[in-house]
């Protein structure tokens, strides 16, 4: 059956509104089961509809469904849908992952009170996110953009009783708000330039290369960078880990943070070269920076948070390089494996809840170790996801990551030598990525349990299946039949014409993969076999071999130290420069506020007081004459006459 636009509009509306309805219902439900059920069912409906829409529109003509929302003066704001391949992928991704994460959450948050809030907020998030991706104009996009931020705020603050969560969600929202306003200003500038908010018209405009458009571009990317936690806005994301892990998985790894990339992809046609270059630089820098931060983390979720930032950096870079398709492709693959990583980490944390009772941090990797056998399901899905993140062949991560890297090298090739900094940075990032994720893997799963008598339980039913499903999506087969060529994947094909990698198509995978085994060995030596080294102190020779020629120590003292120092430096920069800047801005704001407050009290009210005092002063002056001496009264009166006369006489009154 051929679906008309009208039908599709209904489908889209159904997809968007079903979570909204669920939110409205769930918000006022006390029942745990019912609220979960409603929320999940509506997500499922959305997912089903998304599939339906996807199948209708994939690789077909772009469909735009318009209806006017507000029309005032020259401004007309639509509430309409823009359905193209990008949208349909995003839709699918969002609804699918949300659905899975929701199922996961049933068990994950089984012991939380007021759980209906959670379901409502997740539904709200889904609604907002879907609205964001189907929006046919920038203002509508902006509306949902903010709503997404709002739901993220609510979800980060789910455990609002925790002081840290309260601070974290505020931080997240405010940093996002900065970006939002930049975006809004950018949208307005765009409106002034082209008198429209519509996305479809955007594509027809000439990118041009003037200062106005560059400024506009900078404002526009500001919003995206904040949402995608890119330098210099990245600090909120690690803090956002204060929310439940399922939220981190869904919002702060798979979907919402990717919205920034989505926006960049959407807007990339109108970016001037300068803006694109800025994007590439910021993306690359963020990628390597975040990756190096991840190395130094001990909190299990923070490692992943930095990892997310780093991966998003790669995507942003890809957009900056003009390769939106690879960015979007990486976005999709990353969504699955990063979500899976989070979910498995969540399962670990959930399994280690008993640590909490002992006053230990259940998220600290130093308290873990040797979990491989205790929680096999989690172990396996984690392994798959991590492998995908590292980008080993046969996994989806390989395809997308290599696509970006190859694009980067191709891009640099056509430019100057200096431009190679960016692809090389990206390459180093992939190494670091491998390093930190192996490190985490080693710390958590390998070795021996730090707290052997601790009870750990594996993923339960509701947690298990979503992870397993996600794990499937980490394999190449879902994206294309050629495990080595990203260009053959359907997503890439569906998005844009892609250029062939040429020589880089061989070089880059080799370069990026060559270190992985070595890194694995190093990590294992450093983090797993450390105890072994310590125990066998008696034989230096033995030790030399046992330690593989003291490579461990060598790494420990050079490599690791260096990395540790570097990461510490980076962390310091983060902490003492960016945060200080943020803090400074905040304190400067407070300072300004104090000044204004003072102004208000002293100057403005002071002026009022001054006036009042003058008034009283005049009154006092008038009063002086009234001294009670009647003769003085007469004297003043006569003086008055004399003065009046003199005035009249000399000045003609």
């Amino acid at each position, binding site marked *: 059956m051929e679906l008309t636009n009208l039908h599709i509009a209904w489908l889209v509306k159904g997809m968007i509104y079903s979570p909204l309805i669920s939110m409205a219902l769930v918000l006022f439900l006390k029942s745990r089961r019912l609220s979960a059920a409603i929320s999940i069912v509506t997500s499922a409906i959305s997912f089903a509809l998304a599939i339906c829409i996807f199948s209708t529109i994939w690789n077909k003509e772009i469909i735009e469904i318009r209806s006017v929302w507000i029309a005032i003066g020259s401004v007309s704001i639509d509430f309409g849908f823009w359905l193209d391949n990008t949208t349909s992928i995003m839709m699918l991704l969002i609804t699918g992952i949300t659905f899975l994460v929701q199922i996961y959450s049933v068990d994950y948050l089984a012991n939380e009170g007021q759980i209906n809030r959670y379901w409502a907020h997740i539904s709200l998030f889904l609604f907002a996110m879907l609205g964001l991706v189907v929006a046919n104009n920038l*203002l509508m996009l902006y509306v949902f953009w903010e*709503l997404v931020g709002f739901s993220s705020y609510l979800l980060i603050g789910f455990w609002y*009783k925790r002081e840290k969560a309260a601070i974290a969600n505020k931080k997240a929202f405010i940093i996002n708000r900065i970006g939002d306003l930049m975006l*809004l200003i950018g949208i*307005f500038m765009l409106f*002034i330039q082209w008198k429209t908010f519509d996305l479809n018209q955007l594509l027809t405009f000439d990118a041009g290369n003037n200062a106005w458009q560059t400024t506009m571009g900078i404002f526009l990317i500001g919003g995206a960078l904040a949402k995608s936690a890119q330098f210099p806005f990245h600090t909120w994301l690690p803090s956002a880990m204060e929310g439940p892990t399922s939220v981190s998985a869904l919002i702060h790894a798979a979907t919402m943070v990717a919205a920034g990339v989505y926006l960049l992809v959407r807007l990339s046609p109108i970016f001037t070269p300068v803006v694109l270059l800025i994007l590439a630089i910021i993306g690359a820098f963020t990628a390597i920076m975040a990756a190096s931060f991840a190395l130094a983390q001990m909190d299990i979720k923070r490692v992943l948070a930095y990892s997310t930032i780093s991966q998003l950096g790669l995507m942003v870079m890809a957009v900056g390089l003009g390769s939106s398709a690879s960015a979007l492709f990486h976005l999709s693959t990353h969504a699955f494996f990063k979500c899976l990583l989070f979910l498995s980490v969540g399962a670990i944390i959930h399994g280690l809840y008993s640590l909490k009772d002992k006053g230990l941090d259940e998220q600290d990797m130093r308290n873990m170790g040797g979990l491989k056998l205790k929680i096999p399901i989690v172990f396996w899905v984690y392994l798959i996801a991590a492998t995908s993140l590292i980008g080993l062949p046969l996994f989806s991560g390989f395809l997308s990551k290599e696509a970006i890297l190859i694009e980067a090298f191709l891009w640099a090739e056509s430019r100057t030598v200096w431009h190679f900094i960016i692809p090389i940075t990206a390459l180093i990032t992939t190494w670091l990525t491998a390093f930190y994720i192996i490190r985490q893997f080693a710390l958590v799963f390998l070795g021996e349990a730090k707290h052997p008598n601790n009870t750990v339980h594996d993923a339960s039913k509701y947690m298990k299946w979503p992870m397993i499903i996600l794990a499937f999506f980490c394999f190449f087969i879902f994206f294309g039949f050629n495990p080595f060529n990203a260009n053959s994947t359907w997503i890439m094909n569906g998005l844009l014409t892609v250029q062939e990698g040429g020589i880089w198509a061989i070089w880059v995978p080799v370069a990026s993969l060559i270190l992985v085994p070595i890194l694995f060995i190093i990590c294992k030596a450093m983090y797993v076999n450390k105890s072994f080294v310590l125990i066998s102190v008696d034989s230096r020779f033995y030790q030399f071999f046992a330690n593989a020629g003291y490579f461990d120590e060598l790494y420990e003292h050079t490599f690791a130290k260096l990395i540790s120092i570097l990461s510490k430096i980076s962390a310091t920069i983060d902490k003492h420069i960016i945060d200080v800047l943020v803090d400074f801005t905040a304190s400067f*704001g*407070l300072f300004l506020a104090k000044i204004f407050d003072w102004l208000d009290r002293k100057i*403005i009210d002071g002026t009022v007081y001054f006036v009042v005092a003058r008034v009283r002063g005049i009154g006092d002056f008038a009063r002086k004459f009234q001294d009670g001496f009647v003769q003085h009264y007469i004297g003043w009166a006569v003086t008055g006459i004399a003065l009046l006369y003199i005035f009249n006489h000399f000045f003609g009154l």
Partner: protein
Amino acid sequence: MLTILLFLPILSLILVLILPNSNNNLFKYINLTTTILQVLIVIGLYFAFDNNLAGFNSIEGFQFVEKVSWIGLQLGSLGSLQIDYFLGVDGISFTLVILTTMVMLIAAISSWNIQLKPKSYFALLLLLNSAIIGVFCALDFFLFYIFYELMLLPLFFLIGIWGGSKREYASIKFFLYTLFGSVFMLIVIIGLYFSVKDPISGAHTFNMLHMMNPDNYLPGSLLSVGSESGILFGAPTRLIAFAVLFLGFAIKVPVVPLHTWLPDAHVEAPTPISIILAGLLLKVGAYGIIRICYGIFPDGAIYFSYWIGLLGVISIIYGAFNALAATDFKRLIAYSSVSHMGFVLLGLASLTVEGINGAIFQLFSHGILASMLFFIVGVIYDRVGDRQVANFRGLMTQMPRYSFFVIIAFFASLGLPGFSAFIAELFVLIGAFTSQTTNGLVPHWMAVAGAFGILIGATYFLWTLQRMFFGQARFLGAETWAKQLIDLNTNEKLVLYPLALLTLLLGIFPNLLFDIGNTTINKMVDSTMQIGAQQLEQLKEIISNR
């Protein structure tokens, strides 16, 4: 119908005065009934209201018009004086009339627990009600002025008798400030009256609509455009008159730096009065600017637009920073009002259809949200008699329902899409942004600065949320407070639900409100730009000829 709307409270007032003091509970029911009836009437009017009529400066566009000669004097050499009882609403004023009845209803419900001298309280409240409706409906300047001044007195007592600890200071400050603004208006009113004549009868008139038509100005009069006589102290009298009127209304809006009465008055006033102050009184100022400053002196509107915009931006940012520094919850909200009203000014200054629509929308939206916010403050103040931010922590655990509304109100106020404030601020900013390119009145940087204000707005609201509502429950008054801080009761929910729904409704379907005013605003912008530019040209010519 407008007369009924106007005099219903007066009738109730008389009823309240007649009834004996003994039955204290009766008065609040009378007041409630009155306000409910008013809301019903307004709902009826809403359906009878024709959105397609463009009012602003032509009588044809006004609806529910009532005109009765009120004071007619043959003043010898002054000519004859014609003052009418002249009511009517157009898109702009009708929006505000709707707001008035709703806010009054809210105030009536939130006055439920008034124990001190209920008779006087409700009598004054009813008087205030009538006066505010009158201000929005009056089309005769004299009538407008009378209602405008009449508002002050009940407020003085309502703040002064039922207010907080510094109520005396606050009430007299409020009174002096606003009177200072309005008495100067009197001179301009007289000047206008001398300059304008009724085109039909030829008598001097206070009819605002006649004042808006440049043809009705007597040639050679002080406020006429095209002659030497319109010069005072070397400047065109019209511009001076605009400035004077603007000053008067700006105090009420309030505009930084004329705002310092507001924090005191709002903080000291009892909750229902704070609601009325923020929800309606501030709107009266803005309405005055629109109807009178812009309507009668379009040349001034154009001439001063830069400065009005600047004042708006200063108010936005300054108010926001002050809210950030506030330690008193209510003071914070009060300053946030200053900030939000700055948007109204910015929108007006832009003189674009979008900007002014946004400004009117902001008036309505802020009316609802400010009511909600002040009510929210009132809830905890009622319970423990304290509202220092630092004295509360983790209220969310203690009062989840309450916090739910707090979050809605806060996020609606900080401009979250889906709520009315977002639409308002959006359109104001669109207007401000497009102004430079379409009519060149407000530069871009002001729009950017206005947007910056939104950011600070987010900061103080979120900070307050974090400090007061999140975290572990911990109060200054410890156990006692914990016992007193019970969650919302039915009465309070009855107030908060409609408000929350309303702001949501308008956020999603802004056309409900835009439709009422749009035609009128279109006309307003057109005529203001056209007539104003023309007049300004003439004025410049005269000045340069001197």
